[in-house]
């Protein structure tokens, strides 16, 4: 499409020097040749780098999953949608969750993603959930553009991160929602195990984190709890 369009753009050329007439087949030949060449190059590089990138991605995911599920040593990806949990490759689209297993093959917990708008932009998180104690056992910021020194405390302030060592996430008797919604409280006023003790100075980022966690937990945990059986069997 750029063929006919480009001929109109000669902004810096003086009208006094007319162009030598180039036959249009020459232009088409050049463009087609260049397009073919670039297509070939890109495909070659793509074929070569794709396995390396997939491996990098796997390593990075694994590291994040092991960080929010302390004690896990292997992980399997599952797909979660409103109907339940299925394995990758069954063709269902949904949220990717990660089941982490201990060295003996027993289920350590499930890592699930969450996101909310923070101070600057959307922050993406990964949280670890332990079905045995029905609590959140780890958190990690996957992607954030929060202000360094203030908003990024949600990922490196040890006092704040201690909130997520064993945060109460029990379900109500029906198993449809959390028994107690996870909320953020002002720094130093935490009274219940489902509350997150905030950070003064990065209120909005911490609020975003609490909101993201509560939303994702309300959505995913009932399904995870219900379909635990599909997760506990270590897949071959």
């Amino acid at each position: 499409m750029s063929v006919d369009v480009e001929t109109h753009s000669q902004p810096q050329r003086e009208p006094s020097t007319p162009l030598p007439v180039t036959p249009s087949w020459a232009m088409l030949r050049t463009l087609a040749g260049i397009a073919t060449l670039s297509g070939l190059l890109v495909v070659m590089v793509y074929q070569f780098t794709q396995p390396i990138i997939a491996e990098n991605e796997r390593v990075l995911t694994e590291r994040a999953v092991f960080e929010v599920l302390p004690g896990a040593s292997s992980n399997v990806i599952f797909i979660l949608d409103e109907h339940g949990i299925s394995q990758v490759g069954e063709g269902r689209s949904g949220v990717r969750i990660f089941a982490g297993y201990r060295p003996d093959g027993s289920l350590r917990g499930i890592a699930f993603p969450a996101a909310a708008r923070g101070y600057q932009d959307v922050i993406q998180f990964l949280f670890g959930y332990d079905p045995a104690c029905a609590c959140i056992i780890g958190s990690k910021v996957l992607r954030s553009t929060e202000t360094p020194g203030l908003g990024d405390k949600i990922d490196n302030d040890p006092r704040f991160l201690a909130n997520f060592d064993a945060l109460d996430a029990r379900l109500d008797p029906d198993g449809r929602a959390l028994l107690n919604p996870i909320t953020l409280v002002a720094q130093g006023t935490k009274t219940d195990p489902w509350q997150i003790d905030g950070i003064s100075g990065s209120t909005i980022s911490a609020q975003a984190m609490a909101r993201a966690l509560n939303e994702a937990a309300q959505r995913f945990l009932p399904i995870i709890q219900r379909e635990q059986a599909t997760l506990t069997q270590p897949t071959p």
Partner: protein
Amino acid sequence: MQTEALHSIFLNAAIVNNFVLALFLGICPFLGVSAKKETAWNMGLAVIFVMLVSSMSAYAINWLLTELDLLFLRLICYIAIIASAVQLVEMFVKRFSPSLFRSLGIFLPLITTNCAILGLALFQTAKEYNFIQSLVYATGAGVGFLLALMLMAGLREKLALARVPSVSQGAALSLMLAGLLSLAFMGFAGIGGSIG
């Protein structure tokens, strides 16, 4: 982020993450075309228009490439589409408003290498916006660009009358000004979160 509210997307693109002052996209026209308010206004309008056109084209191309499983050609297709869109706008303006064409003349080809346009296409793809969200995002980004350009032009028109040390004339002073504007825009951060 399929669920993001439209007004939140708009405010985010126009103010909180202003393309020029927070994301550093389109700095070249920002410094080059901000000497006079009138040209700045025209340039801003042209950018909004080109952004809308290329946002729609990029959405269509991305859908097509996803269907064909040819995503590795995305960048090449985007830049080709944007270059063509700019040419179309150029012809359109030339045909219907020769005076606008004269004042914009040299800037239109510059929009092709304006990273704000390509950045818009890349960001809307990365954020997985649907068609309506993409359009709102494009409008927000364009309005943000216009806003930054107009603010800068207003400041520079005043500054042209001031006596500044000769060492700080030109781009150095413009950059310092842009820094101050950017600092002011940081104050808007957080509004997207409280309403979104």
